[in-house]
């Protein structure tokens, strides 16, 4: 009885530790891109990743052969989307300061799609299903975000309609 209680926990802890050792770097980078924080000052990204990893840990025994990296990334993305939505919906009065990171000029949704599609290499269909958006919309947002990232508008407060993306 005692053995049955202890060994799954120990096995889970061992496997989870190996998973975190391998995946945390890339996931933290993705989370930091999402929150648009500076790489050396990213409390929001750390918290987001810790919560997502905790979720994966809690459901480790019920993965049923699913990739834990995929599951963590999914949870991270949906949680970020939810937080961004709440922030945007309720937090307009808080003053929208421009985030410091490299993707600071983009909206949270643009960052999310850009990171999922290009940094993580998630297929358009999967990203669309994950976020509950049509595939065309994901492609449009991804193109717009890429254009904004490569050619940041001169005025940060007023993103201009991208003339360069129209040439594709």
């Amino acid at each position, binding site marked *: 009885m005692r053995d049955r209680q202890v060994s799954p926990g120990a096995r889970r802890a061992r496997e989870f530790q190996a998973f975190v050792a391998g995946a945390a770097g890339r996931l933290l980078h993705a989370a930091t891109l999402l929150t648009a924080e500076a790489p050396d000052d990213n409390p929001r990204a*750390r918290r987001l990743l810790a*919560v997502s*990893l905790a*979720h994966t*840990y809690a459901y480790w025994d019920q993965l049923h052969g699913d990739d834990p990296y995929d599951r963590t990334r999914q949870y991270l993305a949906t949680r970020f989307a939810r937080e961004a939505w709440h922030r945007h919906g309720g937090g307009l009065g808080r003053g929208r300061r421009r985030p410091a990171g490299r993707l600071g000029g983009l909206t949270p949704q643009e960052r999310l799609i850009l990171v999922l599609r*290009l940094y993580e290499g998630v297929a358009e269909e999967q990203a669309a299903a994950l976020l509950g958006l049509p595939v065309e919309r994901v492609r449009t947002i991804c193109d717009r975000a890429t254009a904004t990232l490569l050619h940041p508008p001169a005025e940060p407060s007023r993103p201009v309609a991208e003339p360069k993306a129209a040439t594709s």
Partner: protein
Amino acid sequence: MNRPQREAAARRIMEQSPPRVPPELYADAVRRGGRVLRRRTAVRRLLWVVLAAVVVAFTVWALTVRPWVEPPSETTPPVTGWEGW
């Protein structure tokens, strides 16, 4: 620039300067995840206790009330004294 080139350039920008993983991340995740696991175990245990209590209560009620026994009729008055006819 065509689309693959633009995407590759965006990817390169995003790959720059990866953040350092804080050493306490693993312990933090295990602590939070363990809390979720414990809470789930507690909820499951509570549900089992409630289920057991319901079963016991129903059994006791059934054994005392015996709802399957036909109740004595109350509509017909008892016939008495018919031998005198």
